[in-house]
């Protein structure tokens, strides 16, 4: 193979490589622009999610403090009640420590969302009670009561 033909071959290869590189650069830039657009959309979604979250909390905080306090007291009494409740000494503060799970699950998870959606206090309490009765922890302690009280 002569030097000239080798040079021509390599010259062609380098030109092809340059063309491929140019195409890849264009594709990369376009991809980068697309990714930035996708990030902007994602950011918009995150803003909306945060707004919804903030809306939920705003609805909670709009509930009268006295009413929420009563529900909290009722929940505490129910946790301490050994006949129909959980029979836990100290109620929500078992062993001297606050058990935040019932508050999160029943007060913030059931009662307040029900109130925020416009339900009356009675209906919201019913929703919360149902959630408690259908919980695994309650069924374990009062299997008979859980079955009897289960709403049809």
């Amino acid at each position, binding site marked *: 193979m002569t030097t000239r033909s080798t040079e021509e071959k*390599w010259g062609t290869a380098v030109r092809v490589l340059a063309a491929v590189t140019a195409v890849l650069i264009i594709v990369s830039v376009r991809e*980068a622009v697309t*990714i*930035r657009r996708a*990030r902007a959309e*994602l*950011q918009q979604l995150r803003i909306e999610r945060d707004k919804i979250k903030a809306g939920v909390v705003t609805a909670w905080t709009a509930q009268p403090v006295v009413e929420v306090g009563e529900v909290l007291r009722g929940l505490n009494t129910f946790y301490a009640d050994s006949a129909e409740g959980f029979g836990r000494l100290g109620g929500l503060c078992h062993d001297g420590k606050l058990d935040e799970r019932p508050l999160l699950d029943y007060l913030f998870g059931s009662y307040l969302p029900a109130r925020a959606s416009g339900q009356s206090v009675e209906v919201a309490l019913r929703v919360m009670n149902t959630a408690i009765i259908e919980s695994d922890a309650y069924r374990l302690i009062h299997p008979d009561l859980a079955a009897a009280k289960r709403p049809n």
Partner: protein
Amino acid sequence: MRWLLAVSLSALAFAFSATGTFVPLQTAPGVDYLFVWSGSGVMLMMAVLIAASFGGTYALVVRRAARRGPAVLAKVRTGRWMLPMAWLGLLTLGILPAVPGIGEPAAVVSYFLYDLRWWWVAIVVAWTGWRAHVVLGKPLESVFGFPESLSRPTRLLVLDALLFLVVVGWAIGVSPRLRFTDETFGDEPRYLRYCEAWYQGAGIDVSHNALLSDSALDAPSHVLRNASLFGSAVWDDALSLRSDIRLFLDNPGHFRWNRIPLGRNGFVTGKHRSGVYQLHQPGLSLLLFPGYYLDRHLLSLDAGYQGEFPANLTMTSTSMLFMLGASAVGLFRLLRNGLHSEGVAWLGAAFATVTFPLSAFAFQLYPEVPAFLVIVLVLNFAWFHSAGRTGIDPAKADRLRDLARSTAAGLGCGLLAWLHPRFFLVSALLAAICVARGDRRQRRCVSCAFGLTLFLLLGYNFHITGSWMPNAMYAAAGDTHQIIPGVIVDNLIAYGVHGAWGLLGYAPWLFATAPGLLVLARTHRDLALLIAGLGLSLAIPAAGHALNPAGGTPGRFVVAIVPLMIWPVMVLARRFWCSPAFRVAAVIAMVVSLDMSLSYNWTHVKSFGPMVDHSRSGWKPLLALPAIREYFGDMSQDGYVVFVLLSGALAGASWLAWRRSGARVAHVESGPASLRLTRAVVVVTAAVVVSSSAATRAVGRWTRPDYLLVDAQARREAAVALTALDRCRVCFSSSRQHVSWIWLEPNPARQSRLDVRQDGRTMSLRVTVESAEGVDGFGQVHVDFGDGATARTPVVGWADLSHAYRDAGAYEVVVSVQLRDRTITETRSTRVGGNQ
């Protein structure tokens, strides 16, 4: 044919140990090694497999030889070319610690012959293949060699690309925990913090960095704002300098240039009592920034470390990986010029890059890898491409290219100083070499570029502290010591031979550095002095700072210079390769170094620097090195005698290399080549094993829990192997001549549970035995399915069985679970339906 039979038997002996189970059980008095063979059935199968593969290979080579004439055929028929395979049998000795009464003192033997067994198998197979290739007249040369038509630059480019791929592939392949990690540790966040500050357009003041978790995903970057900040900083500093000079001249005795208050935890407040700056210089951040920008701007969606940086740092890690690959290529180009052999240079560069410590830094964000890259590039330019070397007439030289190269060399020297203050001396030495070896034009370019980068660095210090001293910020760091002269010598020695942080234990090839430098000095004294000088100009400031790099990877402070030592080592290897003993010692050092690199990277996490490896022997070369810190003080420290003997061995080897390298190469034939090599293998291997054992005994520990297979896994493997055999004929441990699964403790199985499921005529059984505290119980299960079929299976934790009944009907299934203390038998009636 005799050779064929011999190597087959040898391979069968190796298969005996390789297919068996060899585990270290950690007990109160020490380690009890257990060996359980795989059973007569497996051994019979292995014998057939070995006979078929060896016989097939032999027949194939004989057939090829028949085409090359009767002389070659006769030579091939003897089977002597298969001789290397005969060494496989020796590897059986790797299970020596399990032989009753031996135990831990044979851990060194086990390390060399069992832990490293697959390296030896690969070498033996390659060696045998090479001998077959040679005896057949090298038929594969045309397949693997470079085509004649390939030009020199093309061949070089192919070798570069291949080396890059090998090094990058190795780094990715052997670092399962570290590859592309987003975990940052030690000083890594400091370098990333500059990148984030530049992304936000805050310059070098990190006090205003907004948290990534507080900013929007589509927030624009303000990189260009850094340029305007730089401009205004230059103007402010010029004014500040003018007033400083005036104040200094008014009252030279009391004027304080460095005006910053004492800093803490690597941060200082600026000279105007505003802004927060980091002690660490931003040289590495500059190199990482393109990758970081991609992660920050495009790829990462969440915040990582303390909400400051992107959670995903893939492109930032890739930048480091690319620099590692480029370092290997740079080293190859340097060695190619220095050793005048592309093959030797390629192997040397690949080996130095994939072994410890450089390979461990592929995914660590420290300035060491870029510093090494700059050192090899500048050294290559200074030594081989400067005008003083090439001797090209300056009038005929490509002016522009020369200008660019010289300027780049000067900038590279300056960049080293920007990477970390510990590179100051290396930077100055390299710049001096560039200046000394260049012509007038090159000197001017190098000096200007180097001077400019140094001036910028000093200006950077002035901007923050008010002082032009390069160590101004470190001087104001209240809780960070710079250099302690009193510890330099001790740490310098410890960098080599310390039992936890010493590099000789991790990369034994470094033992050949001193002899290699002496051999190199025979022909190129100035070059040997330069390499030694470069090594010391980094090692001395590093040793003055610390031995332990903040709990990170050992040798971090000197890693930028260590791989360069492959140059004198390769010179030594080329000079003495004709000696079979040297060849064997070199191969052992090479295999141990590669294995240590592989083992280290395989388990390495950034938060724990020393070696952790779950091996069977529990021994590592580090155990043969004493953990001494004061080498000239207390001589009663454990293993001091080992240090003295090791120093003596190094001095002796260096003296021998110096003496022998001056003599003419003379081949003294004392018998056939294969016999000499055989003798060398036996003598050198025995010497290495015996000396390592003696050193380990003197230091005081045969094994370390960090180097042993996790005990729970070892016991589980032992339980699986022992319960799989009905009656174990070849099962022994260090403490007992004959063992069975009844002997193995702890076995919490006291009860068992049976779950039966039926699907048509197929019945599935699950037998679960009692486990406790994460340890699975174990035993043996025997099932009579009621239709004449029986099954026997080991159970460790649980075991599944299934059986397909041929005919429909009612069956009584009897399941007997044999536990350590009793046998539980349970009977289940089952009715199998008509449908399949």
